[in-house]
């Protein structure tokens, strides 16, 4: 028997960092990945898909069209059972609680709810109480939970999943949702807990391979899990160090070398960092053009700091020296602002027509 464990799809996410068109395409891709995953499930003979929370990004901005499409997909694949636990982003939507909900879609109550599935029992609760959990140890038990995995409860955070509290409960696989990258933990001798991660990264805090977990239950009642990379696009954050770089050609060479292995369909954030001499004026327009021509989405972030030594300007009897001394002495500015003001002022003094802000 095969099952799929997924979570944190965050459908209808707000993607303000993208352009409106890219955001629209990316939102469609999030939904399309769900559809592709269900097709994969049918091809692989998967009998159930477990969604461990955060199917939607926000209960406030769920589109009717998305709900309709989801229902159609679920109803179309009627031989696959869908078990969905509400996550902290889903809210109390109750989207599939009405009479017209697909029969193969199953949700969970506040307290522990179990569904038998041919020798496997799928259990979850929206408000889980580990002490109230009672499972038949003869069954293969799969538990769905949504929250931050911790060793033990801390009273301050209700969204925590205290792994120690679930040890020795007869669990075979703990399907977790909330954390957006595939991660696994050992709960006890029998149980393993996994975050499937999100199937598609949405921002540059979700870089790397994304997908779902494929579970296979052997005739000996062993649960074998395997992470399946499945995202249409991968997000990359590339650090480009400019320390010691004093000419534009060297900057461009370093940038192309750092970006060489990334597919054009992926999303890239190029963070330029390191200490830059104030007299070196990098022309980022060329870098930006290269990024926009070579990747589906790319963004550049400037984290460089100006290599300014106050003693160099102590006796500098020039407007530049006077200006830098003045900026350095301005306590109302943050370090970042100070760098930005100096960089901007020097560009202006050097007569640059295009001041890079």
């Amino acid at each position, binding site marked *: 028997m095969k099952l799929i464990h997924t979570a944190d799809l965050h459908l*209808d996410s*707000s*993607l*303000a*960092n993208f352009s*409106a068109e890219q*955001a*629209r395409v990316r939102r469609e891709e999030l939904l399309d990945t769900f559809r592709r995953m269900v097709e994969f499930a049918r091809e692989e003979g998967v009998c159930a898909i477990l969604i461990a929370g955060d199917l939607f990004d926000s209960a406030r*901005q769920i*589109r*009717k*069209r998305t709900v309709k499409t989801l229902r159609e997909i679920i109803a179309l694949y009627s031989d696959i059972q869908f078990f969905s636990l509400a996550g902290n982003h889903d809210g109390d939507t109750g989207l599939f609680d009405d009479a017209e909900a697909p029969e193969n879609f199953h949700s969970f109550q506040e307290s522990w709810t179990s569904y038998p599935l041919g020798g496997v029992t799928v259990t979850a609760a929206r408000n889980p109480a580990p002490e109230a959990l009672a499972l038949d140890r003869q069954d293969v038990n799969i538990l769905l939970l949504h929250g931050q995995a911790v060793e033990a409860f801390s009273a301050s955070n209700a969204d925590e999943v205290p792994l120690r509290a679930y040890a020795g409960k007869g669990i075979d696989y703990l399907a977790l949702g909330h954390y957006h990258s595939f991660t696994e933990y050992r709960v006890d001798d029998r149980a393993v807990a996994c975050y499937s991660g999100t199937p598609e990264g949405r921002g540059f805090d979700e870089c790397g391979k994304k997908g779902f977990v494929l579970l296979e239950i052997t005739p000996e009642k062993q649960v074998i899990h395997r992470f399946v990379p499945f995202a249409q696009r991968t997000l990359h954050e590339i650090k480009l160090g400019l320390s010691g770089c004093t000419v534009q050609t060297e900057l461009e060479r370093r940038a192309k070398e750092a970006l060489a292995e990334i597919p054009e369909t992926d999303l890239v954030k190029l963070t330029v960092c390191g200490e830059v001499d104030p007299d070196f004026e990098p022309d980022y327009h060329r870098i930006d053009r290269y990024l926009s021509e070579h990747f589906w989405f790319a963004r550049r972030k400037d984290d460089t700091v100006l290599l300014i030594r106050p003693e160099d300007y102590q006796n*500098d*009897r*020039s*407007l*530049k020296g*006077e*200006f830098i*001394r*003045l*900026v350095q002495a*301005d306590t109302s*500015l943050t370090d970042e*602002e100070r760098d*930005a*003001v100096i960089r*901007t*002022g020097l560009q*202006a*003094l*050097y*007569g*640059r*027509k295009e*001041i890079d*802000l």
Partner: protein
Amino acid sequence: MKLISLSIENFGKLHRYDLSFADGLNTVCEENGWGKTTLAAFLKAMFYGLPKSGKKDLDENDYKHYTPWQGGHFGGTLTFSCKKGTFRVERSFGENEAFALFDTATGLASTAYSESLGKELFGIDAEGFEQSVFLSIRALLPKDGNDSIHAKLTGIDEIYDISNYENAFQLLDDRAKEYKKRGGAGYIGETEAKIQNIKDNLAKVRELSKQQTSEEEELAAVRRQAAETAAEEKALQTALLRAGQVAEIRASKGKLDEFLRQKADLESKFAGKIPTREELSACRNRLNQIENERAALAKTGLTGEEQAELVSLSRRFPTGAPSAEVLNEKLTLATNLRAEQTSVEQSLLSAQSDLQNCEAALAGLPSAEELKRAERLLESKKTTAKPSIWTVFFVLSLLLLPAGAVMLTTGLWQSVTPLIIGAAAALGAGVLCLISHILLVLKRNRSGAEEQHRFRSEINTLLERYGLPQGQDAGAALALLLAKRKDAETARAQALEKCRELTQAQQECRQKASDLRTYLASYEIAESNPESGLFALLNLSRSWDALWKKQKDAQTTEKQKNADIAALTGEVEAFLSRLVDPNVAIAAKDRLAEMEELLARREALAGRIADRQQELEEKLAALGIADLSLLDLEPDPAALSARQKELAEILSGWKNNEARLLAQINRRAAETDKIPEWEEELARQTEALAEQKKRYALLVKTRDLLKTAHDDLTTRYLPSTRQNFAKYLALLCGKDVPKAELDAKFDVTVQDSGMSRQVESYSRGWRDLLRFCVRLSLIDALYANGEETPFLLLDDPFTNLDEERLAAAKALLGELAKSRQILYLVCHGDRV
């Protein structure tokens, strides 16, 4: 520094002009047109050179202006002293432009200064020189913005970046204005407008969303009410179903009552004494018994045919029929006789057949004569087979040939001729005997073969005729034929004996049969076959016995059966009398059938009644009704039906409402589904606005800090300059010192009658006075740090001063001449 002397070869209108300078004030008082300004220009040219220019205006083109009128060598020399020593600079202008510096102490060329002598000596460029130490009536006011002056004033190392300040400031200001302009224009204004537009749209769509939410709530309410109505309708259907079941119960109850009434009617026909099924069965049995008895009675006694047969048989057997034992004995006899006769006849036939076979066998064998002749033939053949003369020849040859050979060998060995001759004779005789033997044998064989062939042919003919195989040994075959012939003759004799014995036995059997036929004839049976006749007699005898016995038994049985029938009839009548008002006219059997029918009907009714009662109980239990009397409390089905119809209409209304609201919600959803996109766009624009504001703030902050840096840098000299300005003004104005103030651009503002006035609003004299003070204070500021202090060159700057101010100016010049060298060019003696 100090000017020592100059020598002008040709420069403007001056030609071969020499001038020596003293310390302090050096006055050159010449009329207008003498060349005082040219002299001043020469001094400037010696320090800074005279660059060529394409400008047409002579006032702006010194090269063209001062090209010698008279031609000749264009240039001159100037001797000066400074901290580095005393030098003579020689310059030529025009086609042969040249520069040379000589140290007067050594007379050698010096590299202490380059061609940029003025800049290196005074720290300012030519324009700055003209703007500071060169004071003329036409240019008393120093021009603002001279870089070298500013650099000199501020001590700036790089003139380049200070000269870029204006552009940099403008660039930053322009970029800042791209973000924010007056009237809400610029990126920030545009983004704010977009945000406002998005907010407006969001407000509209949210209003739609509110309506949609309201409609969804209404839809939920409609669905709830529809569900409630559907539930009520379902309950009503259940009630209607129950009502139907109650109606069925009522109908069943009516039927039950009817069955009970019919049952009572039936029971009344038995006057309360209802027969049981067993009693009926017993009565039926009795009736059957009666019928059976009557039937049997009817069958009792002889039939007519039997009676006639009995009479006939009585005549045949007047003294009684022969007993079965006698008849059986006779029958056995007849049967055995028939078997014996048959056996004898078959044996006779067989014997006759054997006899015929024997005859036939004999006929198929050679006659005795033939066999005897054949025997003789065989005997003769044996006789001719005795040994003959050829055997003698053969034996002789066997004796003579070896003997001849031995003799020949011995004769040859011993060479005995007679022996050899004898041997030859023996060998010849032996050979002759052998040849004779061979010839005789050949002849015998040829005659034997012919005889053999004839004998063989005869024997074979015989054998072939009697079916014996040919080629067999003729003797054996003949012996076989002889044996066969002997056996056949023996068998024929035996067969003849057998035939005779059997013919006698046949005669005896025929006699016994005749005796039996005589016996049968005594009972009027004429049958040629005694066995058949005896069988017929036996049958007649048995029939006579049976009929006789039957006649006697019938008489006894009839009497008994009549008694039984009477008893049974009495019992039946007594039972049938239970029926009230019986129809005695009909047979008991019919009355019993009527009774059975009534009872069957009663039982059927009882069954139906029981079924109905059980059914009723079950139905009542199913509906939870304890008692039939409670049926009256059940609702009216008609009212239920009416309510159902009413509910169907209500439900239809809810469904219509639901469809309408759904369509409306879906229409709105097309708009409200865009809310997240609007919100996303709002977030995007808000972020963009924040970024724009940040960039604007960065640009403004940079611009302001750059300006502050510039101002700080360029106004560092201002306090001392102002102080000197005030000092010089006090010296020139005495007690009427105006409240004048100098700014960083060397502009003077005068506080007069409570108002700030520009210097242009004053008289020419006052203006020149104020500007003269500005120039002096500027020179003080420029060389305040002990650098090489240049001379002061005054080109008649006091022409517009009144006498009092002129006197003050001259006094000031005297005072200044104490600390620096002054070249005062003047055209009028009054101003000297």
